[in-house]
């Protein structure tokens, strides 16, 4: 089987793949990075979102072989170097932006992509950007508060739903 090489969370990695190996499978089974969750596996839910060359991508909807040489960031790459929670992760904890936590890796990665593009988004921009990330638990309100807090804005000022 051919090997596919990428840079994942700053580390050069290589794993054997079939043609049909998805990026989600490459990360989870090939590299043991099980923080990336597969929810629907039909491109609908966003739980599997990772960054590919800085852009949000559904890892269940891209073939690993198509991403030879890419730089990928997963939820495992979001913590600080000392292992403590990164800013976005800490905001999700502080503002109870998760309940079961299944959607959270995708939410955090989409948030990272949003804030890289737009460091101080409005509430409406946050909701719009996270449209492809589905959460069955929270009702989204605390997720939006967490994103506002992670971008250094007042999370208390959100209108109640």
């Amino acid at each position, binding site marked *: 089987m051919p090997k596919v090489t990428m840079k994942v969370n700053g580390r050069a990695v290589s794993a054997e793949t079939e*043609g*049909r190996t998805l990026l989600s499978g490459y990360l989870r089974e090939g590299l043991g990075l099980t923080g990336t969750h597969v929810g629907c596996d*039909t491109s609908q839910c*966003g739980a599997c979102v990772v960054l590919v060359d800085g*852009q949000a991508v559904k890892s269940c909807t891209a*073939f690993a072989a198509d991403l030879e040489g890419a730089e990928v960031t997963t939820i495992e790459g979001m913590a600080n170097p000392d292992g403590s929670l990164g800013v976005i992760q800490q905001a999700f904890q502080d503002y109870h932006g998760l309940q079961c936590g299944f959607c959270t890796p995708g939410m955090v990665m989409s948030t990272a992509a949003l804030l890289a593009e737009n460091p101080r988004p409005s509430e409406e921009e946050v909701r719009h950007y996270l449209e492809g990330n589905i959460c069955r638990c929270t009702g989204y309100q605390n997720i939006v508060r967490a994103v506002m807090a992670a971008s250094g804005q007042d999370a208390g000022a959100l209108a109640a739903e």
Partner: protein
Amino acid sequence: MHNFEFVKPASVADAVAALGRGEAQPLSGGQTLIPSMKARLNAPEILVSLTGITEMQGVSRDGDSLTIGAATTHATVARDAASDFPGLAALAGQIGDPAVRNRGTLGGSVANNDPSACYPAAVLGTGATIVTNTREIAADDFFQGMFTTALDEGEIITGVRFPIAQASAYAKFLQPASRFALTGVFVAKYASGVRVAVTGASENGVFRWAEAEAALSAQFDAEAVAGLSVSPHEMISDLHGTPEYRAHLVRVMNQRGVRAAS
């Protein structure tokens, strides 16, 4: 998903050669093809990725037209076409969600011709030209009904040439679960007249609304189509809307498009 041989050529010529090798299919952004391969609706033996072909990438202006490489993502079009053709860029920016727009491409959308997809409305509504590895096809001849196009076996779209409109807009009534258009209308005004293309409504896929085009060419004002209606005959019927509901939306979205056109 059935396994396949993956190839990633660097030129259109190499892609065409690879497609000629057997049960082969092109892969662009994969946002439609990968889910359908998972469902085993498609099972190519050879998958030919188009994402490494530089000559199929990017947005470039040439006089009064904008040429977009078929492998250009929706996100790139939303950004790079914004100053030259704001109505088209805004359509690309409304497709799916950010992750879909970062992978999904113009060529994949046009080749697929989903009856609820957004791009076919812009391609038909601007009278664009579809450029393939062998020929050029006018939009009016290209879309031939739901999921059906004029493309031959092994033929690939390399780009689309859009005549830049004086004013244009895409009005999309969102189907929030799929994120596709429940009904969407692209309106474009040219010196030669107005074109109106409707997606998401007809069982026969994207179509032009000739009566509205005539009325708007005479007077480019939302009121000009206020009294017009399309027949619900052969409109899509599903749990999201009846044929009558969609027929109604065609006029409403057309009027919203005219009001928003810039």
